[in-house]
């Protein structure tokens, strides 16, 4: 087994939303996109980070005292303030905290180490028709790691699912697809300018990569997060449906309702959630989205 490593921020077992059957989802850290609705803000930076859970913090100052890099400024009223530029995620503050208010998100792990965890649930994959999903972050940013892990899975008869934003190099995509049984592919916006504005990256790379996936004949599920006022307009949905019909007509489209579950995590990594005021989807809106995709002859489901 190779010593290829990835930076992982979570390995979720009994994962039931990321592909068929019971799965283990390996979340890699680091993503080139900056979607404002991102529900895993800790997945954006590739470097390990300290997460600070304010609700558990008793503002004792033990973390600041333990930090060897002077990265934590502490006041009795405000509690700890993290200077993310100075922090090297050494973990001293985590060990000093008696209240479980701190943890490190992100660990550099070898494929071997991840595999050790993944293989523990083989009986569940086998019983349920499940397998392993790699998600993120953006998996194409760590293609060598993902490909190596998937290869190992395939050698052991475990189904693999690649959950991607679609943004990455053709070379990275090829590496991963070599060992991928199913692709979860996000489509967020069809207007390139708007895509750049919201996500910070161009749309065309994503479309080209979708074509590659489709050309290889790998089953694909298109995931469309339906964000009110951002991409939920009819025009965008029709453009999305047209693209899918043209490129991957057999794909299932999965509409993901907008939720704010990740909002509370922003503060813990020193970020600000910009969509606090945004409403959730109305049931009609979700239904209408589904109707549009079906109008284009596509299989479509609204995720719950």
């Amino acid at each position: 087994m190779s010593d290829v490593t990835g930076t992982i921020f979570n390995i979720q077992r009994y994962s039931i939303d990321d592909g068929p059957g019971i799965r283990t989802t390996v979340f890699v850290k680091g993503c080139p996109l900056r979607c404002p609705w991102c529900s895993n803000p800790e997945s954006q930076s590739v470097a390990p980070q300290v997460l600070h859970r304010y609700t558990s913090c008793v503002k004792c100052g033990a973390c600041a005292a333990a930090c060897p890099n002077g990265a934590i400024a502490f006041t009795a009223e405000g509690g700890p303030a993290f200077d993310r530029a100075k922090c090297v995620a050494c973990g001293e503050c985590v060990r000093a905290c008696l209240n479980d208010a701190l943890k490190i998100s992100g660990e550099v792990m070898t494929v071997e180490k991840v595999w050790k965890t993944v293989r523990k649930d083989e009986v569940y994959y086998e019983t349920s028709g499940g397998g392993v999903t790699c998600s993120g972050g953006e998996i194409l940013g760590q293609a060598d790691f993902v490909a190596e892990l998937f290869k190992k899975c395939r050698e052991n008869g475990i189904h693999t699912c690649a959950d991607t934003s679609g943004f990455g190099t053709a070379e990275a995509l090829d590496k991963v697809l070599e060992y991928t049984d199913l692709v979860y592919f996000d489509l967020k916006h069809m207007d390139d300018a708007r895509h750049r504005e919201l996500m910070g990256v161009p749309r065309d790379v994503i479309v080209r990569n979708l074509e590659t996936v489709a050309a290889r004949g790998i089953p694909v599920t298109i995931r469309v997060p339906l964000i009110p006022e951002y991409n939920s307009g009819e025009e965008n949905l029709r453009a999305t449906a047209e693209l899918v019909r043209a490129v991957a007509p057999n794909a299932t489209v999965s509409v993901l309702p907008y939720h704010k579950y990740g909002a509370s995590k922003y503060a813990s990594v020193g970020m600000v959630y910009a969509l606090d005021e945004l409403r959730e989807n109305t049931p009609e809106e979700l239904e209408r989205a589904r109707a549009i995709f079906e109008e284009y002859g596509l299989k479509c489901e609204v995720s719950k």
Partner: protein
Amino acid sequence: MVNKQEIKSVQVLTPRLQKLKTDWENAAPQVYVDDSILFTQSWKETEGLPIDIRWAKALEKRLLECPLLIRDGELIVGSLTKFIRGNGTLCAMKPREILKMVESGKFDRKTSDISSTNIDAADLEALRADAEYWIEHMPKVSSVNASVEFDMGDDVFDLLFDRGMVFEGRGVRYEMDRGLFQNYSSYGGGVAQVSVKCVENGLNYVIDLCKRERERMLAEGDENSHGTAQFLRKYWLLKATIISCEAFIGYARRHAELARELAATESDPVRKAELLRIADACERVPAEPPRDFFEALQCVRLYHLVCWKESSDRPEVPIGRLDQLLYPYYERDKAAGKITAQEAAELLGALWLKIRECENLVTIPREQRAAPGSLLPNITLCGTDEQGNDLTNEVSWLVLEAMAQIKLSEPAIYVRYNPDMDAQFVLHALECNREFGGGNPAFLSDKLGTQRYLDRGIPLKDACNWNASGCLGYHLDSLEHMGGGHNISQLKVLELALHDGFDPRTQKQLGPHTGDVREFTSFEQVLEAYYKQLAYFVPILRKFKLLSWSTEIAEGPMSGLRVAMQYEDCIPAGLASREGGARYPEGRACWLGSRGLVDLADTMTAIKKLVFDEKKTTMAELMDACEKDWEGYETLHKLCINSPKYGNDDDYADEIYDEMSKKVPEIMQSEVDPLTGKKPMLFIGAAAGHVGIGKAIGALPNGRAAGSPTCDAACSVSPGCDVTGPTAAINSATNDLYAKEYAGYAMNMKFSKSLLNTPEKIEKLSWLVKAFMKRGGWHIQFNIHSREELLDAQAHPEEHKNLLVRVGGYSAYFIDLPPGLQAEIVNRTMHEII
């Protein structure tokens, strides 16, 4: 082929059942005294007669003279008391404790640890007089305590549940009020269960057998027991059985008469016909075999009720394999167009309401109660036959649907799971669980349950006929005597091992000297000290059990009905099931319980890792910290909390759990049970007892705070320690066939509704169950609700009257549970999407 649409479309709570349910919910609990007074009257009338006759006559008196009623709209009849929520009791069983209740005016009931029970002024005085009569006529000394002291000395009392708490179980107490029946440790004379064979053949058949056997004995003696004490006993025992059976038939016929009287004055022709149907049924059963589904169901109700009445102070009457019992009648009626799924569902709902109506008073001190909130009328579904065919049928489907719709805490349902059963049925069971919320049904491994009996040499035709009973137990229908558990609290033994045999709470040297752990230089020494302590206590418990059992046999209580329930074996033997009349001795007095395995393993893991492997602390410092309940040792406390824990698929922790899981039963079973000549059956249920046990135990190196509850069930993960999800927890629990030796090896899991909100997710949960069983699991159950809902119920109980939760081997209304248990359930790990 089961028509799923038809099952799903039934309406169990028809307007009439809804009204009966609402009446029950709104009724105030009431103390019921009539049976107690009748029992006493009978006992006075039968002075001088053989003991078996006296018990049978006391049952007869109650059955033939107790108040009777049929409520408006009832389809299935047979009420325990004259109140909607009557709580029965018998002064003869525990007069001093009843008198205490009379004097305090506070009557606790078994099904709620929160609210007390009303009593009419006249009943209060009658109960007082009854209790005083029995106190006056009761032996002044407990025969169990006297026998134990005579044979073992009085030091052993320091170990009992109400003293040092090394031993645990309601019968293992010094201060218990032992009444006419002195040893009620074993389910008040052993579980009496609705006997399928009795239902199918009718009690006239059993009476006839008894009569013929008596005549034969008079004519030619008994080849096995000529002129012996057993022969003479048998003569009376058979008479007692006849009296009990005839009384039971008489009780049913009283219902028939009452139904006819009501029918005579009933103006509504529909209701009139119903009443006449009830009259016909009660005229027929239990004397003769039921002719249809309705009569079979009515018969089950009457059996449940009469077994209940004949069960001293703690009636735990399993209903058994209800789907198997009812299906032949259902199938026949349905084919003949006599019944629809809808009609059957309503009747099942009517049965549910009658079962739930049964309540009784509880006198055991609150902290020592097991299974609070429940009376354990378990129902078992499915299973396989001798050829391995799955026995799931349409009644199995209907029972689950009835349970989900009627939403009553009892009866608890157990599904005997086998991998070949209809996957659609498993989905149905999980959907019903989601509707119900509180862990019904639980899943038991069909294969393992049968295998445990096969391993003990019991032939397959009988081994496959097992059902759930008690809290997390199980036994063979009509083939063995189910005694109660005598348990060892592993954590108390551990605490003693950590203190050289000294108990910090009672300040007594309870165990042998096994060395000062502060001086230990290796982990093996800690293990060794623990094993020595355990090995010291096991023979003492075994002996205690033998002696208390001997007093029970001497008293020979409540035998007649129990002989009838196991007539095939007990009649020829001339012995009640508990006396050796049962076909197999397996369950007889031979459950040795062991509680606290998870905390034990986690504690050993923390010691090994922090003291001996990583040397982050010393035994001395760790012991100081535990003695101070972690105060001033917060950093060390955190290290202990974060040390590897069982349930996370962590090899370091699981290896130690593995060692404990094998070594503990090895010690517990190192000698045969003298009552059976076989190795004792082991019981490891911990749920509900775990709050009380935890109170007697100080802080432990696994990070546990002094006095907090122990882990909730045998293989559940300690609350808050399960951080890697359900598959990891299952893996830890099934790394080896741990469940093979242990009854009660249960896994409690708590899921949020969001993990079950689509058919796909329910299907995924069904695969989790499948994998659990495939890996050798025994018992798994799911609580499905949100933490917020539970917290809100603690704050506003009045708004959550119907919130059901799974506790251990049963479900209960959350608001009826004692606060410590409520808190523990809130803290169980919730699997949810984060």
